[in-house]
Structure formats: structure tokens, C-alpha cells
């Protein structure tokens, strides 16, 4: 090989390196740009239509034709729904996660099967949870109501919360459990007083992630929660939700109402941003009880 040939090859290889670096930088910009573009567009379009009455009033007669009112019913409905579903999901996912991490043996079949199923459930589309929630609802003779919505959303949140919590609890050092056992604690006491306390910030983050997902999901509540202009006062009344309110307002042919859809979307986006900021913050603070 002559030196010039060698040089040319080297130059070509360096060129390739540079081209791919540029492509990667461009991809990264696309990813970051997308988020900025989405949040930016929503806020920019939503702000002009934002009025205080949007978040302090329920829809008055003819709201969807452009008359007075707000979407307080949907905001409250979403908060009720997501809170109820989150509580229900905690009740199911905490025991599961504690069991596979504290009680199950190191290489337990059950634990890996459970993790696997949770992963699979995590991938089930929310519309399927909605359809399944609808089946349960019919099965128990319920009508579209807050309760049915809570059930469907809890199903959706359960795998998200469990997987996130599992990631955290898995990190608890084995020695910490053994120290607790050697002091005479039972596994239950160890699970609740040592593991949960040790992982509290991480668990709260998991809960908030699930809550955020629950509050933003539309497809699962479409069949189950119904829609109403009033704020629900019992579990058996239908409840409006923010994502559906956005969807319905956008679907009307009136520009004023569509403007309100943008404003509602801005409200939901800000809500999600706050939740994820708090979740992130919690991960860093509240580490008082943690033994490193």
C-alpha cells in the first residue's frame, strides 16, 4: 500500500465518523426539538384562550356551542378518577412488589414470571383496558360511572407503578434485609418498616408516574367513566375527564370552543409538567431515612 492510498482511506474513515456524528447530533436535536415544539405549541395556542372562568366554572348551558362556562367538572373529575385509581393500584402493586422482592427466593420462578407479566401488561394498549373495563362494568351491572372509570384506570396504572416500584426496591441491598432479620424482625416487619421506608422517595416517584399516566389517559375512560357537565358526588355517577373534554371540544365545529380545547390542553400539559417535576424532585429529596 502506498502512503497516499493509506491517507485517502484514513480520510474516508474520518469523513464517515464526521458524517455519523452530524447525523446523531441532528437526531438528538429532533428529539429535544419535538418536546419543545409540542409543549411550546400547546402553551402558545392555549394561553390566549385561557380565562379564569375556564378553571373555576362548570359548563353552563350551550357551553359546547361557545357559551359561558369552564371545565372545572373535567379537572375535578380527572383528579378524582386518577386519585381513586392510584390508591387502588397502590393496594395491588405494593404487595406484589414486596412479595417478589422480600418473600420470594433469589431466583424464584414466580418472581420472574410476575415481572414478565407486568412487562407484558405494561405494553397492553389503554383502549384494551377500556374495553376490558367496559366488560367488567357490564358484568357487574354497573353503568358508566366514576367507579368503572377508576377500575379501568387502575388496571392501566397497575403495571406502570409496579414496574417502577420494582426497579427501586430491587436496589435495596440484601444486607439491610439480613440485618433486620437478625434483629428478630419478621419478613412483614422488614418489608413495611425497612424496605418501604428505605425506598419511600422512589416509591412516591413510582406512584406519581402512574398518577400522571392515569390523569392523561383518554382511551381507557372513554367507555367507562362516561361524560357529564356536573361534578360527580358519588362513585356511581358518571365523571368528566380532562383528556375527553379536550377531545370533545376540539371535535366541535365552533372556533371558540376549539380555542377552549387548546386552553384545556395547556392546562393538562402544565398539570403533567408539574407532576413530573414533583416526581423528579421527590427522587432527590426525602432521603432522610435512607441508609446508604
Amino acid at each position, binding site marked *: 500500500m502506498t502512503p497516499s492510498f493509506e491517507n485517502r482511506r484514513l480520510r474516508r*474513515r474520518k469523513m464517515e*465518523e464526521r458524517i*455519523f456524528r452530524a447525523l*446523531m447530533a441532528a*437526531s*438528538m436535536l*429532533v*428529539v429535544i426539538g*419535538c*418536546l419543545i*415544539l*409540542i409543549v411550546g*405549541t*400547546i402553551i402558545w*395556542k392555549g394561553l390566549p384562550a385561557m380565562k379564569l372562568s375556564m378553571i373555576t366554572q362548570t359548563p353552563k348551558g350551550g357551553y359546547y356551542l361557545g357559551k359561558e362556562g369552564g371545565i372545572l367538572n373535567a379537572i375535578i373529575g380527572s383528579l378524582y378518577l386518577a386519585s381513586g385509581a392510584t390508591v387502588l393500584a397502590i393496594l*395491588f402493586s405494593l*404487595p*406484589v412488589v414486596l*412479595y417478589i422482592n422480600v*418473600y420470594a427466593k433469589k431466583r424464584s420462578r*414466580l418472581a420472574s414470571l*410476575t415481572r*414478565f*407479566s407486568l412487562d*407484558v*401488561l405494561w*405494553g*397492553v*394498549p*389503554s*383502549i*384494551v383496558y*377500556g*374495553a*376490558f373495563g367496559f*366488560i*367488567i362494568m357490564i358484568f357487574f351491572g354497573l353503568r358508566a360511572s366514576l367507579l368503572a372509570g377508576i377500575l379501568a384506570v387502575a388496571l392501566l396504572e397497575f403495571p406502570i407503578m409496579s414496574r417502577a416500584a420494582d426497579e427501586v426496591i430491587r436496589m435495596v441491598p440484601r444486607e439491610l434485609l439480613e440485618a433486620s432479620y437478625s434483629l428478630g424482625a*419478621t*419478613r*412483614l*416487619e422488614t*418489608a413495611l418498616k425497612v424496605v418501604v421506608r428505605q425506598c419511600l422517595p422512589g416509591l412516591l416517584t413510582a406512584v406519581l*408516574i402512574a398518577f400522571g*399516566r392515569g*390523569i*392523561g389517559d*383518554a*382511551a381507557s375512560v372513554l*367507555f367507562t367513566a362516561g361524560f357529564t357537565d356536573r361534578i360527580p358526588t358519588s362513585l356511581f355517577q358518571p365523571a368528566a375527564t380532562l*383528556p375527553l373534554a379536550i*377531545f370533545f371540544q*376540539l371535535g366541535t365545529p365552533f372556533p371558540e370552543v376549539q380555542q377552549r380545547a*387548546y386552553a384545556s*390542553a395547556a392546562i*393538562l*400539559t402544565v398539570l*403533567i*409538567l408539574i407532576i*413530573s417535576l414533583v416526581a*423528579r424532585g421527590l427522587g432527590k429529596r426525602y432521603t432522610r431515612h435512607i441508609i446508604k
Partner: protein
Amino acid sequence: MRISRDRLARRTMLVLTCVPAFLVLLILVGLFVRARPILAEKPFFSLLFSSAWSPLKGDFGLFPFIMGTLWVTFVSLVLAVPVSLLSAVYLSEYAPRSIREFTKPIIDLLAGLPSVIYGVWGVLLIVPLVGRIIAPFFGVTSSGYTILAGGIVLAIMILPTIISVSLEVFSSIPYPMREASLSLGATKWETVRHVVLKKGLQGIIAAIVLGLSRAFGETMAVLMVVGNIPRLPRSIFDGGYPLPALIANNYGEMMSVPLYDAALMLAAGVLLLVVLFFNVLARVILVRVERRAA
């Protein structure tokens, strides 16, 4: 006393731990039981491959919807895979720590935005973009509510999934392997291509399959931008009508037309079957990758 309480807790938790595995089956069984009335009337495959859709006449051919889903998913994968793989390679191989820390919340946030928000954004930006700029550029007139618009919105939605799974895969590749390649005089990109991408290939496939199954089941965002025309799409500038959108759009009337609810539950069941297949496939691959790394 304490021991008996422990035992009681152990049993309850054990029972609850079996819930996830059963839930998967329960949902599948539930959907197909509800779909039985229509399956009793027509064979499964003729429903899947018939294009006749007129509920009032009792025709429930799901084929246009299945094709709609496939088209949208395909477009989104074509757009999302290169971008997300390049980003993942950059984040895992090139980026300094500070950039990695900076982008993680961004990717998480992108994953956490509700699909309705994506939908509204799609209506505001992507639909006009397709209708006024991209379609005329190719000499097509279009309202913008097209397969392409759905694909673009979906592509952005599945970016975080593919990126974060690939990042995990790349981080499981032992560092000395890269050093060996670099010490032989390979450039950084050559190392990526011959070591990281080659070693991580299975994991990358799993990441893409997970993205695919996410795209397959996504409902609201696609529904809002894709046009919802129950016809076989012929190009990406046609409107489409994916399966999830079909289910979501017709929940109101499904109880009043005979067999309609059964047809929609069948659609949900088919959707679930496909998603389960892809998910199980991806997870099996990932478990194998993880085991090899450990």
C-alpha cells in the same frame, strides 16, 4: 402473633402476586367471550379479511382497519427507528455525562405526555404541514388528515420507548469490548458499528418491536389526525382508520346495533393478541440479552 401475622401477609401477597399473570389471560378471555356472538355467526378469518363494513347490514369486515393500523405503524417505524437509534448511540457512546443527565428528563417527559396532547398538537401543526406543504410538494391534494400525519405523530410518541430500551441494551455491552476495538485503531463510529450495534442487534430488535407494539395500540392521538375513513388506504396521503380508532369512535352506538359490540370486542381482542405477541417476543429477547450480560 407476629409470626401468624407474617404468615397471613405472606399468603395474601402470594395470591396478589399471581394477579398479573392471570390478568393477561383474563383480559384476553373476557374480550373473546364478549366477541362470541359474532364469531358464532361468521368464521374468524372471513371477518379479518373482509373489507365490507356496514354495521347496519351486519357486515363487520375488519380488513380496512387492520390495514389502516399496519400502514400507520409502518410509517411511524420508518420515521422513528433511525432517529431513535442514532440518538441512543449518541447518548450511550458519545455524549458527556452532563448531556445524558440533561436529556433523560426530556425523554421521560416525552413518554409521559398524554396522547390527547399529541393529538391536539398533531391537529395544530402536523395536519396543516402535511396538507399544505408535504402533499402539494408531491403533487397530491389532501386535507392533511392522512396516514402520514398519523405516522409522524406516532413516530414521536414511540421515540422514547425505542431510545430508552436501546440505551439499556447498549449499557449491557461490556466496556472492554469497545476498548479492544478502539485499541486496534478503529474509529469511534467503526467501534459503534462493528461492536456496539452488532452485539446489541437482538436488543435493538426488541426495542423496535416494543415501539411497534406501542404504535399498534395507540388510540387517541392517531384517531385525531388520521382521518378515519373506513376504506383500504392506497398511499400515505389517504386517510386511514386504524383498529383502536374504530373501537374508540363507536363505543356510543355499539349497544344499539346488533352484533356491533361483539365486533368491537373482537377488534379489541385481535389488537390485544397482536400486541401480546410482539411484547412477549421482545421481552423474551430482552431477558436473554440481560442473562448473557450478567
